[in-house]
């Protein structure tokens, strides 16, 4: 009840602010999986294209880290988001609605060690440092920590801010293992040419969706969704997508496809059953 009331208030506030949406660029928040600059390099060409195509001016808005990104979602600071943090119970009340999702493969959480690491099992991580992207990361924290907690393995958590940074800390030897998004870590390790070994992998989850704040008029949301979905089919859009994917070492297929909230019920379900403390920052 409280959550709903809060959501209603926030929605009203967003509606009020959206009255000015026509003469301002709408913010497009992207989850902090990589460092913000790389993220910007990947996303700004896409958003420029989408803005042109949809007629909805979009501006990339990045948080400094995952926690900040989650806080900004919770506060409804983004008009559009490319993130799954909106599914956490605290954020879900803001009311972001999924309008599309990336065509990239599903994601899964993984606990990895460096190739030459003597650690062979999760059990060996007991009381050892394990680096996580952030307390808000779904496949990077919630999913592996839940597993570790359920396995009775107490690790000493470290938080690196984002996925790539977490792997980078592992590579630097700061931690014995890193908990990361399998796709991000794969791309990053490939880029950085770092060998690693997967100790544990979670079940798969749908990759990141694009959601829209409830204050955004539907036409704009649809226009954006359409532009995104049609992007891969457009020569220019495909080129942009390809260039962006090359930046992060992502392999095809690229682009977006339509999606809805129902497609991500599995994630919401996990949050609800997770052993990880929910009100983490």
């Amino acid at each position, binding site marked *: 009840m409280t959550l709903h009331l809060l959501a209603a208030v926030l929605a009203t506030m967003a509606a009020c602010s959206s009255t000015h949406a026509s003469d301002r660029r709408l913010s497009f928040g992207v989850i902090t999986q990589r460092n913000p600059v790389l993220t*910007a390099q990947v*996303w700004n*060409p896409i958003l420029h294209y989408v803005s042109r195509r949809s007629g909805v001016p979009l501006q990339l808005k990045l948080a400094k880290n995952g926690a900040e990104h989650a806080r900004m979602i919770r506060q409804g600071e983004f008009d559009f988001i490319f993130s799954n943090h909106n599914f956490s119970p605290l954020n879900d009340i803001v009311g972001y609605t999924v309008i599309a999702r990336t065509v990239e493969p599903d994601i899964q959480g993984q606990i990895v060690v460096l190739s030459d690491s003597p650690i062979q099992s999760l059990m060996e991580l007991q009381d050892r440092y394990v680096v996580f992207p952030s307390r808000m990361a779904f496949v990077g924290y919630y999913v592996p920590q839940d597993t570790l907690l359920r396995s009775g393995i107490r690790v000493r958590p470290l938080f690196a801010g984002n996925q790539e940074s977490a792997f980078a800390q592992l590579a630097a030897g700061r931690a014995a293992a890193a908990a990361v998004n399998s796709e991000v870590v794969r791309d990053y390790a490939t880029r950085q040419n770092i060998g690693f070994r997967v100790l544990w992998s979670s079940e798969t989850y749908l990759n990141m969706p694009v959601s829209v704040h409830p204050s955004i008029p539907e036409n704009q949301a649809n226009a954006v969704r359409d532009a995104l979905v049609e992007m891969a089919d457009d020569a220019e859009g495909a080129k942009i997508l390809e260039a962006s994917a090359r930046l992060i070492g992502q392999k095809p297929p690229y682009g977006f496809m339509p999606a809805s909230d129902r497609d991500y019920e599995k994630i919401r379900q996990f949050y609800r059953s997770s052993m990880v403390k929910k009100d983490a920052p």
Partner: protein
Amino acid sequence: MSECPLRRSWRRVSLAGRLLIANGTLLAALGIGYSTVVVQSEIDFYQSDLRQTLKYELEFLAPAISEPAVTGDYALIKQMIESRVQQPDVALIRWTDPRGSVLASSGNEIIAIAPDWFVRWIAFPRLHQETELLIGGEPYGKVEVALTSTAAENKIWEALRKKLEILLFGIGTMFALTLAVTANGLKPLYRLRAAALRFGQGEHSVRMPPIGQPELSALVQAFNSMAGNIDELLRSLRKSDARNRLLAVIVEQSNVAIITKDLNGIITSWNSAATQVYGYTADEMIGNSMQRLYLPVSDAEFASALERMRQAISMVFEAKRRAKNGWVLDVHVSVSPLHDEAGSHIGEISVIRDITRQKKAEEALFAEKERAQVTLASIADAVITTDISGNIEFLNPVAEQLLGWESQEATGYALPAVFHAVLENTEETIPNPVEQVLRFPCPGKRGEAELVSRNRVRLPIEHSAAPICNREGSVIGAVLVFRDVSASHNMARQLNWQATHDALTSLANRREFERQLEALIESAHANSRSHALLYLDLDQFKVVNDTSGHVAGDELLRQLSTLLNNRVRGSDTLARLGGDEFGVLLVDCPIDKAMEVAETLRQTICDFRFVWQNKTFCIGASIGVVTIAGDRSHNADVLAVADAACYLAKDKGRNRVQASPNDHELSYRRGEMQWITRINTAFEEKRFCLHYQRIMPLQETGTERHYEALLRMVDQDGRLIPPMAFIPAAERYNMMRQIDRHVIAMAFAECSMRISSPAAAVPFVISINLSGESLSDEKLPDYIKLQFLEHDARPRDICFEITETAAIANLSQAVSLIKELRDMGCRFSLDDFGSGLSSFGYLKNLPVDFLKMDGSFVRDMAQDPIDAAMVGAINDIGHVMGIQTIAEWVEDRPTADMLRNLGVDYGQGYHFDKPKTMGEILASLLNKAA
């Protein structure tokens, strides 16, 4: 071509200086070059570094800021900017977001140390760059970075400064080291130089220890070796050349000129004695022809000398040569052929002595001998020279003449054979004077003797002998000089006679008389003998002298002297003592006898008649007689006593003989002497005064008042003393001139006093007496003129009175004086006319205005008809001659009447007036006028 000054200066720089300059310049150039390269390199480095920094900062900042720019983390951007701006050299970092918002920060300001010129020189480019943040095609603003080059400039400057300091330190150190090294290193060189100097000055034994650097040590050793070699060489040279040198030295130092010449007469050597002889130096003569020394006209002589030389003939000869100063020299030359070591005839050697002086001396000696002979022949003295044995060698012509021997004839005789002299008094032959001086050589032994010539003629001679000595002082003979002194003997006798005799009368003179008198006094004293002295004074002699002239007077004296000389004995002495005074000394003559002699003489004179130009004069004599006997002190003033006696005789009436005066008379004479003192005192105390007695006109013809000034002395008690008391003494002691002058001055003064009084209108004539002594006072007219001027007196008011006897005694002077003063306007009066010679003839010669008859006629004329006749005659004569007459001593009226009747013009006497002072006269005149 002139040398470059820099080069000239460089040449003066010492080795140390050159090293310093070269090294300093090199080091400075290297240092500056190195510094320039290093600085340029540093400039490049810092420029590159700054560009790198700029690039780095931008490359760092752009991605660093990208992330917060992307996330909008302005705080982080600001923090990053502020962090980066702290980096060195970063002056400014500025980020401008796409909306134009600016985040900027400036670096700490750096204080510039480097100077401006340096900063301009290195000229750093502007270090400012900016870059656009474009991420994924999205602009995220602009980043600008500006760097400051100040720090770099400071660093470069500091580095350069340090390098320059090091360079300066290096140069300084190099200088110090160079100085030290050169100073120390050159020490051996300096010592070497000193040693070389000493060696050069002849100290050939000097060596140096091998010191210093190897090179210098080697140099020292080289020097030592060289010095040793030279020393050795010199020694060997000295040894081998010693003989030649000795010969050369002998030749050079010989005081005989030695010249060698080749066969062409070209001089090949010339020693210093030759230089002394000829004046030419060796440099001037060697290589020149001998002909230079020949006289200009001696070409033939030179040619024959060359011929002789070529024939290798030795000879000795005398010749004339020419010196450098042009003098012609007499030289004694000895020439010998000259052969070289191989025996070839190569020339001639001449040894020359300058015999000019010797030649001259010979000539001088010859001339001297000639001169001596001529001198001896021409002198007035006789000269005999003898050899050391006293034998005659030579007689000069005078000696020949006096001795009667020819010189040749007498030569060889002993002196006494030819020269025979005897002493004048004893006829004794004098000792041989030559023998004396030969025995006891002392020059100029003199003597007098009488020479007896060969023909027995006798001559008084003076002779002197002297030894003749040679240069060593040895006696080689004697000379006897004698002269005929008969003339000088005669002269001496004559002089002696003249000294003791009166030239006019040939009688003994006063000096001789006094000498003989002294002898008599002495004999009287010593031998108790009694002699007599007569003092004789002629009377009326002056009349002869004045009327007929001195020649007449002299003749009178001569005749009278002869006459008197015949009246005394040969042993007696008759002398002329002065003008007309004579003295007679009668030896061993008692007073009565002496009185007789005196009377004889007086009578002789009285009887004598002197005739001169048809005039006959009678004269008399007053004679005083005195005895010379007894003690010397009694006779001290015997001549004065005789004089007094003579004077007494004159006083008693002349022409008489008076024995020596008695005591009373002597005291009278002494009283006269006292008067002289009183007269002088009266002069000093101005105690003379004048009284005036009127000369009264008897015929009422004269209008002027005529007075005679009469002198009075006022004694110390105020009493008047009449002139008769002191005038005789004054006359006797020649004081009358002084008294006359005094009277003239007083009368003129009082006369002018009268002129300035109210009685001035009355015409006045003052008569002033002049003594005979004043008549001969040549300066009196000048004195009178001076008094006229001084007292403003008028000559026409003055009349001078002179006595007849004084006028006649000094006739010529009197006439001259009268004329001179009358020309001025003065008048003259002839006083006491009739008392003396009364020769009217004189009157014609005396241009007087008044004739004043002697009072002795006037006083008794009233009783004595002769006197009256005399007065009449004189008056008549005077009037005939146009002279006014004055009668004095008029004491009564009958006399005055007689005079008036006789026609006498003026009368004077107590009858008319008593003498009064001028004050009294003037007062009475005023009373009369009143």
